[in-house]
């Protein structure tokens, strides 16, 4: 604290002369106490302070009383001075600025990672969509990884004129959901997912789809619709693309291939319905009422808007050609089933592409999917179905009537899996990753080794395009990729 100013000696002496006036009535104990406790009204306070300024005896009593208060721990709580209030406000303002700056930096970074620098208009348009949140964090990482995986398609996108690219990005941000949104949309009929592990994988697929099919979306539908719109533009701009292999259509696929193969869909559920319509008459699984089926059909009919044209086969092929990995991965993706309800089965032309991939332990998710699957029940049995229950991987070869547990070492709790028909990849706690083959009878633990040692974090998401190529997401958001069936892993 700065040294107090000096006063002229004459002032000191005159003050001294003022002190201890004789015959003056001293304030009583009550007034002195009230003064020291700030309990007196202004008038009395002024009188007492005037007296105190001239009476050293009363000043002594007051100060001694304060000493006693300090001893008893009854020191008055001092009100915060304006200076300290300002200090607090200043720090708060500083903290707010810091948070804002960090937010902007991260936002711009995420935009750059999506490709190119965003214009202010894009920033404005996309700001509410990509606003980061805690729940979405793992999703973003998964998206990033998926985008990397799909980078083989980036050149096609880069071929677009700059303005077209900007339009594409803008369209993606306007219509494509933010990180995490794709996963929620997957069961758009029911409630959104709440499980991070599923977010990661589904977000990956959503991102794959968006990254793979650049183009200006022409409608304001959900992510799947955007994907279709993007496919349109992409196909139109790349007429010289070689013919694609026949698309594999999964019942629950959110891949553009699936969307293209059927009528246009508003959501993923609708895509499933459409896929079913394309494949032939619906086969209701046991436990699903006809009412539900008809509701589902109605829903599908409503979803196919008048402005949505049928995909031309050529375009579909072009699109599939441009996204081999994404379509393969997405087409294999099927929603999980619940024990109590009928199961929405994947409709696959090849056994390898039809598999169930996600098992949901969360009750909300199960309920959501139950309502979803009840409406959208389809037929076409699959050779093998997989799910996770109680941290264990289970498989069924009789459409979910009976489930057999895959033998895994005790103490490991599985969180996510990815099926490849009769084989599956499953990851869980303590960096465990298993490759299950021979229809669930044989499981091999694959050590996840990176340059700086083994991974011990929980695997929250697993995605494989085939037995050699895949990515996993760890609980800390880290993405690892393998191209040799898990022998080596690279970070992203």
């Amino acid at each position, binding site marked *: *604290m*700065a040294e*107090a*100013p000096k*006063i*002229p*000696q*004459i*002032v*000191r002496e*005159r*003050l*001294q002369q*003022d*002190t201890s006036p004789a015959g003056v009535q001293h304030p009583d*104990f*009550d*007034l*002195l*106490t*009230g*003064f*020291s*406790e700030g*309990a*007196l009204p202004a008038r009395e*306070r*002024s*009188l007492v*302070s*005037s*007296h*105190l*300024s*001239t009476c*050293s*005896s009363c*000043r*002594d*009593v*007051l*100060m*001694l*009383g*304060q*000493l*006693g*208060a*300090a*001893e*008893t*721990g*009854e*020191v*008055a709580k*001092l*009100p915060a*001075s304006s*200076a*300290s209030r300002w200090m607090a406000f200043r720090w708060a303002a500083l903290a707010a600025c810091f948070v804002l700056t960090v937010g902007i930096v991260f936002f711009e970074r995420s935009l750059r990672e999506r490709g190119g620098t965003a214009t202010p208009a894009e920033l404005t348009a996309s700001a509410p969509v990509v606003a980061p949140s805690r729940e979405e964090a793992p999703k973003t990482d998964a998206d990033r990884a998926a985008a990397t995986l799909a980078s083989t398609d980036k050149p096609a996108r880069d071929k677009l004129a700059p303005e077209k690219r900007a339009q594409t990005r803008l369209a993606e941000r306007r219509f494509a959901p933010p990180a995490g949104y794709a996963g929620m949309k997957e069961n758009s009929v029911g409630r959104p997912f709440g499980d991070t592990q599923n977010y990661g994988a589904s977000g990956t697929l959503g991102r794959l789809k968006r990254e793979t099919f650049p183009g200006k979306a022409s409608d304001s539908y959900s992510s799947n619709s955007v994907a279709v719109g993007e496919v349109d533009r992409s196909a139109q701009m790349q007429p010289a693309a070689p013919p694609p292999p026949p698309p594999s259509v999964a019942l629950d696929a959110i891949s553009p291939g699936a969307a293209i193969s059927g009528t246009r869909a508003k959501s993923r559920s609708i895509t499933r319905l459409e896929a079913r319509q394309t494949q032939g008459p619906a086969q209701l699984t046991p436990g699903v009422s006809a009412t539900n089926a008809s509701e589902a059909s109605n829903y599908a009919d409503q979803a196919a808007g008048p402005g949505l044209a049928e995909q031309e086969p050529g375009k579909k092929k072009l699109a599939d050609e441009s996204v081999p990995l994404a379509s393969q991965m997405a087409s294999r993706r099927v929603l999980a089933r619940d024990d109590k309800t009928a199961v929405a089965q994947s409709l696959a032309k090849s056994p390898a592409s039809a598999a169930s991939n996600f098992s949901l332990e969360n009750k909300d998710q199960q309920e959501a999917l139950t309502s979803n699957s009840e409406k959208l029940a389809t037929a076409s049995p699959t050779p093998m179905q997989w799910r996770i229950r109680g941290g264990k991987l289970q498989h069924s070869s009789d459409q979910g009537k009976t489930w057999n547990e895959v033998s895994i070492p005790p103490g490991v709790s599985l969180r996510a899996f990815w099926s490849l028909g009769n084989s599956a990849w499953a990851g869980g706690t303590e960096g465990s990753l298993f490759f299950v083959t021979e229809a669930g009878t044989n499981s091999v633990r694959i050590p996840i080794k990176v340059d700086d040692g083994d991974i011990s974090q929980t695997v929250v998401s697993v995605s494989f395009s085939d037995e050699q190529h895949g990515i996993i997401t760890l609980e800390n958001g880290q993405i690892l990729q393998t191209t040799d069936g898990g022998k080596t892993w690279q970070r992203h």
Partner: protein
Amino acid sequence: MSATGKTENRIPAALAAELCKKGCASKYGMTTTAFALVLEQVAAKYLPAAASHAEVRELCAGLRVEELALARACAAGNDHAWEVFLTRYRATLYDAARGIVRDEARAKELADSLYADLYGLRVNGGERASKLGSYMGRGSLAGWLRTVLAQEYVNRYRAARRLVSLEEQTEAGVQFAVSAPEPSTPPASDARLEAATDAALAALPGEEKYILAAYYLDERTLAEIARSLRVHESTICRKLEKTAKSLRKTIISELMRAGLSRQAAEEALEADVRDLKIKVRERLGAGESTPKMREIVQKRTPQTFHAGEGQE
């Protein structure tokens, strides 16, 4: 008092009943009427005769009625009230005494002596005179007890100083101590300067004057003053700085009004004989040869320096 000698009721009955209930006076055997009388005493002491209802209400609202009821019940000799009082305030009183005296034994003695006064061992006109009967509830009872304790300590200290025997003084070596130089007759200062200073001090608000006196005369710390005024230490520091500046400004303007030029007024304030006397004494005591003193001498203007020497 009215003309007829009958006390006027300044506290409305409803308000008295409400405060009586709030203070739980019945718990200590006090009736509403008895408590209303206490309230009347308080109002008579602190309110002017022509106080409005609003002032009465304001006063009553600030009263510590619960502690007031307890203290008055103790003064009246209610056993339950004494039990409560001792339970609540015994430790507080000893701690406060320890804080004031800084000596365990003397603190206990001080607190015990106060207990005697509080209980009312003295009898006035056949009635027990308890010190708690003078508590009016303007501040907390604990604070009031501390203030009473502090006053008691000051009284004892003064009495003890008067009672120091010659033997004790001899033992303490008082007679061998170098007597402080007798202050010479205060040099005749400029009457105009004195008048200007008095006027400036009179114009200061009471609180600022209190801060000046506590800091410069009693040499209290900023923290102590701040605690007594329930403000932050930095507030006192700022006020002190501001007051000193404004005081100087006011004195200079008063001197200018008295006919001095600004420069002369500033010189009169700066070159006050008392200041110079002290500075010269410091200089002589420390020795001019020290680097610090040389620095001081160099800083001082030759004019002031010579004037100081001349005065000394």
